[in-house]
């Protein structure tokens, strides 16, 4: 996956949060924006951590 695709996938996740707020007919606050970004990073951390643990426990799976 290229850098651009990763950036697009991440921005899409953020856009989803923004759209949800718009659907509720309100402006998104700074708090919500930052919380959404934190949530995206939490998910990326979990996924990376899972990959690392899987490979550390069984390097032959690479």
């Amino acid at each position, binding site marked *: *996956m*290229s*850098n651009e695709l*990763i*950036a697009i*996938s*991440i*921005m899409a996740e*953020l856009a989803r949060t923004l759209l949800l707020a718009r659907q509720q007919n309100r402006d998104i606050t*700074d708090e919500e*924006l*930052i919380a*959404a*970004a*934190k949530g*995206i*990073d939490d*998910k*990326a*951390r979990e*996924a*990376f*951590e899972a*990959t*690392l643990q899987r*490979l*550390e426990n069984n*390097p032959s799976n*690479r």
Partner: protein
Amino acid sequence: MSAEELKELLSTPLALFILMLGASFGSAVKQIIVSRNAGGYISLREYFFTHWPETVVMLGTNIGAFIGLIMTDALNWASALGVGYAANDAADLLTKKGRSDSITPTIQQVEERLEQKKEEQVIRDELNKNQGGFIRPGFLMPLCCFLVIVLNTFALNGCAAFDKYLSAPDQKEQSFAERLRDAYLAVASARRVGDILVQAEKISIKDGRNLQRQLNVVRDALDVADEYRKIGNVPNAESKLAATLLILEELETYLKEQQKLQENPT
């Protein structure tokens, strides 16, 4: 001598005692100036030596207060300044016909001073007329305000105002929250790239683990910056964010290099 060493030296009891005496001296100078402005006349020598009982009381009060402050662990810059200043003022209460009487101008001295002030005012008015009326208070005040605004805008902000007007109209400066959000997203991007690279065997598991650890540090720092933002401590929040961005840039450079290697293995 470093700033810390100088600070330590100035916080010694001896330095603080000198500060107390300095504050008393400052109080004396203030009294003399006030007296002279009101028409009285008393010299520094007369103030301290002719009225020696007050001087002795002032010194005694300072010494006593100094010992008291040390014993109560209350000796610091603020207390030394305050007590020193008050010690000299309090000495005036000693005798009615003492120093306090000398620094109070007589009615005759006050009248002479008022007369002198009137003459000074006449001369000042004459000088203002001769100046041609170019700079009068009514003009000077807006002129000063204008200069302050111009200096502040162009000099202190590094001509940022020019950039603002010359740049594209839709170019909007990002708020701190937006920059913080982008930093969180950059961390998430770096994790995903790292995840892909480690699975593709372009970086070792150890490198992947190290990357994850460093990104965790960046994330923690961003959380701290966010906490500073929440309590309104903008300078600390900005400096924390700036520091994390530097680490992120280094990590991203590393990841890009690895990605290039993946795309062009030769």
